[in-house]
């Protein structure tokens, strides 16, 4: 948790609306865990005012952080116009990331932009347990999107499973269905770590509950502060009155602790 002025050293436009930004930010890179995020200030002016949250995609060279950003609105549009050499005002690493424990059977599930934090997670898991086979399930709308999001997962140790909504790459259909087909009948069970659109996470949570697999999901919401001060990022808690806060209690939650709607 610190504020660091980093520098943009690389900018790649992957598709017409997905960009990859690499920043030198040694202090944040040194302490970041998979699933954590940074709050990035878009500009010095008052509009857009608030920082924007982005997951850490990976920490190349251990002194930089890489983000993968989809242009969806005003702030991300402005980021798309940044140029190499520019300073960036970052706060991070923030939030509670994914649990990395045991060499027990583990599997990652990502959908769309939710794939972003999973590369960092896959690398850390394989670093810690070099002999592990790590199944990684990635889904996206089309081959065009998935090709870029899946870049980097060709690590030894990763078994990649791919599905697209339109069938242009991998199997045709939902990534949760592919997961159920591949592992649903296997004895022993799996531990799942996932990030993606809400409907995907919801059906994944239902699947894991049915199969009695532990499952962690990374949630999103609009944020103002990212550090637990504004209480704007509330999600209803299960079994308990009140709300959890995505920026400090999450973004990664046990799927059983989320009151799915």
């Amino acid at each position, binding site marked *: 948790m610190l504020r660091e002025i980093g520098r943009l050293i690389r900018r790649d436009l992957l598709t017409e609306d997905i960009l990859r930004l690499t920043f030198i930010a040694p202090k944040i890179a040194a302490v970041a865990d998979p699933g954590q995020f940074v709050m990035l200030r878009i500009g010095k002016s*008052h509009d857009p005012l608030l920082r924007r949250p982005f997951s850490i995609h990976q920490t190349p060279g251990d002194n930089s952080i890489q983000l993968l950003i989809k242009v969806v609105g005003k702030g991300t549009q402005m980021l798309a116009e940044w140029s190499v050499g520019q300073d960036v005002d970052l706060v991070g690493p923030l939030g509670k990331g994914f649990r990395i424990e045991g060499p027990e059977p583990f599997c990652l599930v990502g959908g769309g932009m939710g794939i972003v934090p999973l590369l960092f997670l896959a690398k850390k898991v394989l670093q810690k347990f070099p002999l592990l086979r790590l199944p990684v399930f990635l889904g996206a709308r089309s081959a065009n999107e998935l090709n870029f999001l899946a870049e980097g997962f060709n690590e030894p140790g990763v078994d990649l499973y791919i599905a697209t909504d339109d069938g242009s790459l991998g199997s045709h259909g939902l990534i949760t269905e592919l997961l159920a087909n591949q592992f649903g009948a296997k004895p022993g069970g799996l531990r799942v770590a996932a990030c993606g659109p809400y409907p995907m996470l919801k059906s994944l949570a239902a699947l894991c509950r049915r199969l009695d697999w532990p499952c962690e999901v990374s949630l999103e919401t609009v944020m103002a502060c990212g550090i637990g001060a504004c209480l704007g990022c509330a999600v209803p808690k299960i079994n308990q009155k009140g709300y959890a806060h995505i920026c400090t209690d999450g973004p990664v939650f046990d799927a059983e602790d989320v009151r799915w709607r």
Partner: protein
Amino acid sequence: MAIIDEQLPDLQVNIGNLLLKNPVLTASGTFGYGREYQAYVNLSNLGGIVVKGISLEPRPGNLPPRIVETACGMLNAIGLENVGLKRFIAEKMPFLRDCGTQVLANILGDSVEEYCILAERLSEIDGLAGLEVNISCPNVKMGGVAFGTNPQMAYELIAALRGRSHLPLIVKLSPNVTDITKIAQAVADAGCDAVSLINTLLGMAIDIRSRRPRLANIVGGLSGPAIKPVALRMVWQVAKAVKIPVIGIGGISSAEDAIEFLLAGATAIQVGTANFVNPQVSVEIVAGISQYLQESGEANVRNIIGSLVIS
């Protein structure tokens, strides 16, 4: 080697008997319970911290979405989510007591009785320098806002509180009134030590695709740079209308903004939404005020308070 001992300007100000080492406080609801900013700010460099609004019982807050960004500002409808009096004292005070600056508790109740119990209990514990009485929250039904829009009710509440607490009482005013000076005069007559203003301006935003309000609460409080001119005007009017100190709040994001409020008559200021944008802004503002005083040859911040030149 000769060391040039440059005389640093005196930044101390008084709010009633409350002495602040500098005029920069952090605004309620934007700085958590102080600890959230510990990693970013040396808290002892602040004039003070006003903690998140506290109610007698814990409150869960409103349904999400609770915040939405608007042009140069944001709307919030947090709904006074807070841990309640008991947990505040047990869990938050131990840290705050030793944080190196003055700590003020912001309190909110549904009735005069509730405000009084809060004030009494908080006056009994160690480590609080004052109470900020929120009679202006737009986001909860009872929200104290009834007290904040009716001068007679505001007078009665503060008069009752005055009898129940020895701590400096600051009354936080709502801008959602026709004439804010009337409320300010009423609470000053009732014996409070200072007024702070403004709380958020009631606002709204709509998603035109779904045709739904962007906040689950439909309406919310507008804060940030967008409200600064309104806040500044109100601070100027109130500072002329009452004899007690005025604390300026609203959109302050830089030392320049803060100095505008001091010139308009504020004895101190609070930094709110800007903490979200730059978690270190509060201490940068302290440094910036000091630098401004040096550059303008002022030895003392009190010299510039209310020194607006109108020809």
